[in-house]
């Protein structure tokens, strides 16, 4: 599968986007597979989805929202992790379910704030995070 940005793996399988009063609700699903890139080294004797890959999954879900909302030339770049914490681990066969509330403010339209909760398929909380992303436009790359 080809990508338009560097990434350790394709970190979301499906993404659903819905409008919300002051932003959007983004939900995404990723099934953890032992054959996913990079996982062979994390770790050799047992496989666990790295915490930063959950961050990557959330980032990719928000990238989908950015291109849907702002056109194919729009890129959501991570500007800040206000907080992130990890709970239940994700192992091969587990499903990661991402629920992300995005808010945008009229005075800073290029900045998006994301409040995110991630659950494992069995309902256990696996991560929560508050992020700030910046919407950049790639000039000459925008067919919108």
């Amino acid at each position, binding site marked *: *599968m*080809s*990508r*338009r*940005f*560097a*990434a*350790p793996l394709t970190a979301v399988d499906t993404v659903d986007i819905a409008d919300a009063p002051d932003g959007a609700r983004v939900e995404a699903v990723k099934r953890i597979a032992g054959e996913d*890139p*990079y*996982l*062979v*080294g*994390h*770790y*050799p004797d047992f496989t*666990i*989805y*790295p*915490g*930063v*890959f*959950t*961050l*990557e999954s959330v*980032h990719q879900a928000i990238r989908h929202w950015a291109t849907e909302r702002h056109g194919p030339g729009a*890129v959501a*770049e*991570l*500007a*800040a*992790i*206000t*907080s*992130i*914490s*990890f*709970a*239940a*681990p*994700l*192992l091969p066969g587990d499903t990661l379910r991402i629920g992300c509330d995005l808010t945008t403010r009229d005075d800073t339209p290029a900045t998006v704030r994301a409040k995110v909760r991630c659950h494992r398929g069995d309902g256990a909380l*696996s991560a929560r995070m508050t992020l700030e992303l910046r919407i*950049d436009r*790639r*000039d*000459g*790359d925008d067919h919108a």
Partner: protein
Amino acid sequence: MITLEHADIRRILPHRHPVLLVDRVLELEPGSRIVATKTVTGSEPCYAGLEEDLPASAYAYPASLLVESFGQTGAVLWLYSAAMAGERSEGTLIFGSAREVTITGRAYPGDVLRHTVEIDQLIGDNAFMRGETWVGDRRIATLGSVLAVVREGLAVGTGS
């Protein structure tokens, strides 16, 4: 001044190719501070499968891997210091949480990430660290607080 080569780092961290993201330790003061590098190259798996004719910005090193590389650098400092002090941790090394991380710049293939990490506070099997990531004279990230923990098994409610 303690320095470590890749072979030494592999003896300290459980991570392996291609997710072992610390190349060399330039300075290490046990219990206190570390400076380590990771070279970004276009042949890494994260650059596989990109479309043709993308703008330069598409080749920015992923933020997720940048944070992982920083965290592994902190883990080298912590685990090396603990071993020097005769402490031995049983269990799995876990990225627990982080706060106040700002990413102000990007790194591209050919750049060398230079992480400086300090241990802020140690509480049992929990290490609070902070630091910065530089490319040359450009600071590209500031990490206010990163909490790494060692936990037995995987069922302790904290993961990865």
